[in-house]
């Protein structure tokens, strides 16, 4: 339905889980939540077509979505958790080390750069082991920004999330999982999908440092996130509490069977005969 369904190769992961061709996922009959958010599950500005389901990650998101007027939300859990069911245990590295750090993306310009340097300093002060910086595509492509980070550690990028069904790095989530599994900690200056994914992949989470507000950002929302999930903010967290919350936000326990998902997504007809039998 919407091109956001293909972001980060989500539709591809779901197709593989459902026993369909992961190279060519059929159109999902609805909207798949493409990232953790504190609104109705859809990204801001997603043109919502009435009567179509929103497939959200968690029951809490569904309740919030309902309260915001979305009547068609169904909880399916995060695609990342589906990916985990597909990734074999042998993919797990023998030893984890260091921290994978996801700087909040979207700052550019001179005055942010100063803050940014302070952030890097704080990271290096906090983290014991080596730090891998994971940048979003548009920062990664920017040689100047990339160079800044390369001074402090290894710099990677999981790939391009895709736009209008094109150029999606189908292996985005796979790349992220492989990287997360190499690290002991996952951290960011903002609570985001990457932190939740990191927890699911077995990393210790941390959220600290200058949150780096955007120019026109809705500050109350960002502040609400800190109030609602204090257990996920800090340099060294209560891991049991952090994990419980993170897994609930990803919809742990709510994953549907391939058959149920196919029926929900309108994919039953795409089922290869062999699987149907």
């Amino acid at each position, binding site marked *: 339905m919407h091109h956001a369904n293909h972001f980060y190769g989500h539709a591809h992961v779901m197709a593989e889980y459902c026993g369909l061709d992961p190279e060519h996922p059929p159109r999902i009959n609805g909207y798949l939540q493409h990232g953790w958010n504190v609104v109705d599950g859809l990204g801001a500005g997603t043109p919502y077509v*009435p*009567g179509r389901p929103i497939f959200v990650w968690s*029951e809490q998101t569904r309740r919030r979505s309902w309260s915001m007027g979305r009547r068609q939300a169904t909880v399916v859990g995060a695609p990342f958790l589906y990916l985990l069911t597909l990734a074999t245990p042998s993919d797990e590295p023998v030893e984890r080390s260091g921290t994978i750090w996801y700087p909040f993306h979207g700052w550019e310009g001179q005055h942010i750069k100063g803050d940014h340097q302070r952030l890097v300093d704080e990271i290096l002060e906090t983290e014991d082991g080596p730090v891998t910086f994971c940048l979003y595509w548009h920062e990664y492509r920017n040689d100047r920004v990339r160079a800044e980070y390369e001074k402090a550690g290894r710099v990677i990028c999981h790939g391009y999330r895709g736009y209008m*069904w*094109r150029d999606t790095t189908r292996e985005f989530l796979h790349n992220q999982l492989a990287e997360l599994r190499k690290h002991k900690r996952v951290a960011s200056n903002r609570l985001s999908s990457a932190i939740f994914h990191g927890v699911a992949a077995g990393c210790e989470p941390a959220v600290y440092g200058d949150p780096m507000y955007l120019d026109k950002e809705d500050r109350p929302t960002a502040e609400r996130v800190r109030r609602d999930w204090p257990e996920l903010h800090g340099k060294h967290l209560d891991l049991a509490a952090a994990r419980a919350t993170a897994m609930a936000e990803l919809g742990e326990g709510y994953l549907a*069977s391939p058959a*149920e998902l196919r029926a*929900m997504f309108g994919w*039953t007809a795409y089922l290869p005969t062999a699987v149907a039998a």
Partner: protein
Amino acid sequence: MIGGEMPAFVEDDPAAGGALFAYLVDQLPAGGQVLIAGPHDDALVDAVAARSSVTCLVRSQPKANELDARGVEVLCGTLSKITDVERYDVVVALDGLGRLCSAEGPQYDWAESLQALKKALRPGGTLLLAVENELGVHRLVDLASATSAQGDGAWLPLGEFDTKPGNPTRLAGGLAAEGLAVDWLATAWPSPAAPTLIATPNALQDGPVDALAAVTAGAVGKAYADRAVLSDPRRLAAAAVRGGLGSEFAAAWLVVAHRAPRPASTVSLPSVLLGDGPVIEIAPGLDGDWQRRVIRQAPGRDLSTLNGPLPAGRLLEELLLGAALRHDLPMLRRLLSGWIAALPEATPDNVVVHQDSPSEDVYRLLDPTLPAQTDVLRRFAQTLLGGGYAHPWPAATDLQTLTSILHGAAGLPDTVPAVEPGDEPPLPDSRREHEEQLRALRRQLADAASRSEWYERELDRREKQLRKRDKELDRARLQISAFSGTVSYRVAKLGVSVARKARNQIRKGLS
């Protein structure tokens, strides 16, 4: 003829009767004089007559003639004309007190009618009486209003404006005021005239509440299977019993009372009776569990599987609906797959689930004598959609899709055969459900309308893009012809291919 008889009148509403009433009258002391006051069906009269000497009081002369022809002693006329004083050992009034006065003469209210019947009772005599509950489940779901009844017998359609007692406590009080002491009181379901479930308030309060709520819902559901109602009587009955309001919502109350002095032998009646032909007793066993026992067989029906402990637990249908309303997907999936693995041919209104430990659910048939059903998941999908219940898949608004999802959630393949229109499982004919369906259809229609507007806008946008790309393509073609055969030609050819690819991409996005 005692006076006040109605020469041509025939009762239009059915007389009191049925297997359970027949069982009750059989428990009365034998051998005495019995007055059967008001319309009771022939089988009931015969049952009493087999053990005692019977006199019937009826206002309809044709009925009186019929009874007389069958050798039954009859008092034909109106209640106020009875002159028998302290004559009867037992008075049976299972039709209530509303059809004892004819159109002629005084119109006694409930208390006056009771007084008149009591006078006919000997000291130490027993009264077996039914009192309809004007706020009973049968009234609450009825499309028609009792106060606008149009039958020939409804010359005073009082309905809830009548003065009869409105709950068991007041009923006992009313009887005590006439010097009648209550020996036994029970609730009757689903209709006052022919109950198929009789349960004492104690059983409903302290017995296996969940299982009894399921039994009550079953009794009510059966009675209303083919009747139009305001709302689903099964939900109302089950919610009432579960909520401790069984007595308040029962269709009628039954009492056995005696006039002082206390008779030597009092009537002993069970806590719960069930049956529409056969009679089944549900009573506390020795170890605190409740046992079911067939105490009266029905010809041609093997009910031996009913004997034994009453399956404990909550009705599966209610658990499923509860989990759906709570959007508790893990529980819903657990119940669906547990049910389909254990009892794939039982509808959820005939399965009780005992959830003792979190990991172990025990699924049992409530009534093992009911025939097996196919397509039970489709039936449950129909219940969800038809009843307008909130559930975790709100976008699945058609039966086929929701059935397919339920199959998936139950651990079955999602490929389910299509069902021809008209062959869908039946829906209860309930006004509230109709209203919900109408609302749902309006919502879907509005959604579909704005969806088609969205598609039109999208088409428009893509169309404009296509035209723009076509123009670019035309320009590129011109350049090709201008630079044909040269190096520039090859470059231009590349340009065309890029433009074509872009156009195809847009078309692909549209499909």
